[in-house]
């Protein structure tokens, strides 16, 4: 009897041991939390970036988002990825006035550059602010008939049948079952890591480099209320985003083919208003404005100097509209351009973490 008892005990121990081992294998993988590398000036000057509580950043989520961002499986015929219109070499836009979709059809607005998106405090994305989060924005291009022209059911099926994706989703989100919500969460995580904060002007503010006299003159014009008066919408040495992320009618037209914010809110007082883009990396983001009408920085500066058009919703900050603009001299224009170019962040363009 004693022998049987000992055998039973031994068997029990072995069983428990095996059982524990099996549990270890099936243990759920916990993704590794990721903290954004926030540039020094951003830490000093800005409030914390917005990270949704239901989509915290993880290393696995970001890696998955990056793979998805560059993957042409998201388009109808496997010819386009997000990066086709948001090329890292162009500060995540492209050089076309209107990007072409998978069917060769052009859109109606210029592709927006992508960076510093976690500091878009109003959480309204796109030129007209229609997308109320990065996650929601990422839903749109896949099913847009003039962009990727696919459907989420097709895309998720393709991803589900892929060799790598199910495991990557498991590691990032705890499930191999792929759906549009998780795809867009991953892409949004990757997009939030796209931080541009190391331009020459940033280094100047940190005391690590100097500016030429022309660049300094340009900054003065930018900051002068009676000259460029750019700072009210595009930031300053105290706001390294170089945008207010708000919506303005900046005097492009007397009437509107594209209502912009007004098409989203339905308020006629919002017609012709579009989001102020950041002035970082302008060297890489031509053409300019929501409809890419200006090919060069000179054209942009000329617009604000003498090309303003009056309309019913023009922003009061376009204060010299009756004179066509702020009337800069050729020298002042050249100085202003020289300053704007100091906001170019080549490290961002060449960052290997952001390349395919």
């Amino acid at each position, binding site marked *: 009897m004693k022998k049987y008892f000992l055998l039973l005990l031994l068997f029990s121990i072995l069983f428990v041991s095996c059982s524990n081992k099996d549990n270890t294998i099936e243990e759920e993988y916990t993704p590794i939390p990721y903290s954004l590398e926030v540039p020094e000036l951003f830490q000093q*000057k800005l409030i914390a970036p917005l990270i949704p509580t239901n989509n915290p950043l993880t290393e696995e989520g970001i890696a998955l988002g990056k793979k998805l961002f560059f993957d042409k499986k998201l388009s109808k015929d496997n010819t386009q990825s997000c990066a086709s219109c948001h090329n890292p070499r162009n500060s995540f836009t492209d050089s076309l006035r209107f990007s072409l979709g998978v069917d060769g059809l052009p859109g109606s607005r210029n592709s927006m550059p992508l960076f510093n998106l976690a*500091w878009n405090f109003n959480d309204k994305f796109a030129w007209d602010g229609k997308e109320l989060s990065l996650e929601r924005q990422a839903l749109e291009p896949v099913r847009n008939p003039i962009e990727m022209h696919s459907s989420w059911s097709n895309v998720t099926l393709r991803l589900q049948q892929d060799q790598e994706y199910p495991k990557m989703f498991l590691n990032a989100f705890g499930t191999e079952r792929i759906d549009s919500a998780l795809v867009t969460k991953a892409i949004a995580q990757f997009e939030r890591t796209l931080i541009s904060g190391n331009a020459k002007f940033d280094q100047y503010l940190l005391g690590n480099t100097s500016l030429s006299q022309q660049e300094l003159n340009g900054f*003065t014009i930018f900051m*002068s209320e009676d000259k460029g008066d750019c700072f009210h919408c595009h930031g300053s040495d105290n706001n390294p985003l170089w945008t207010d992320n708000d919506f303005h009618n900046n005097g492009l037209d007397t009437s509107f083919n594209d209502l912009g914010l007004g098409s989203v809110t339905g308020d006629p007082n919002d017609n012709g208003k579009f989001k102020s883009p950041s002035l970082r990396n302008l060297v890489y983001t031509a053409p300019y404005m929501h409809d890419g009408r200006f090919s060069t920085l000179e054209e942009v500066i000329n617009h604000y100097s003498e090309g303003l058009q*009056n309309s019913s919703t023009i922003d*009061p900050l376009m204060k010299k509209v009756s004179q066509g603009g702020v009337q800069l001299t050729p020298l002042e224009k050249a100085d202003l351009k020289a300053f704007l170019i100091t906001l170019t962040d080549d490290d961002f363009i060449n960052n290997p973490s952001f390349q395919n």
Partner: protein
Amino acid sequence: MKKIIIICLFFGLNSCSQDRDISLSPVAITLNFAHSWGEDEISSSDFDELKFTNENEQTLSINRLRYVISEITLIHESGEPTVLNDYNLVDLTNEAGLSFTTSESILPGDYVSASFRFGFSNNLNIDGAYPDLNSALFNVPGLLGGGYHFMQLDGMYIDNNNQEAAYNYHVINAFDASNPNETVETSFSVNIGGLTIGSNTNINMKMDISEWFKNPNMWDLDEFDTNLMGNYDAQLLMNQNGSSVFDLVSITQ
């Protein structure tokens, strides 16, 4: 007997201590900001339309209104002042910051006076020091003295050529470019009066925007419409007109 006295003393003291804790626990206070044009209450839904007439009989619209208040100060009946370090950006355009509860607390009780400051006093108007205001692009360029806007009031008006023109009624600390070291304090204190602070005190204020254009200086937008930040004299006039824009509506407990 001695033990009984000690026990009674202990409970007695403990009881007193609890009473004092309850009655003197510091509390936050809430300031609410409403807005009017004269007698008419307004909100952001009244913006963007040429529907207001100033004292100078100029028709105007409001497209944007933001201002900062700071230094909430209370003088206790004992004479002791309490100054809260809070500040708040009131943004009527986006209906944000209209109700503001202080992050710092004060002891309940009777206060012979209370006030807040419109804008920042010189010692607190520190260039780039407030990340939330930097993020809201409320800064003043260094070449105009730095620090922050006190108010940004933008809109359109009908000028003397019967054309729509812009105005940017931006209040900052007056800066004289010809004498940059001489500063004049153009933020100002708004008196609330005496009050009793309880556990849930709401101070309800109202800004009459029309007062910026009339009292004591009748404002001619044809003369002062844009580029006012660098206009030292205009800033002094704005400061004078600001003295009558706020009214205490009520204090509720």
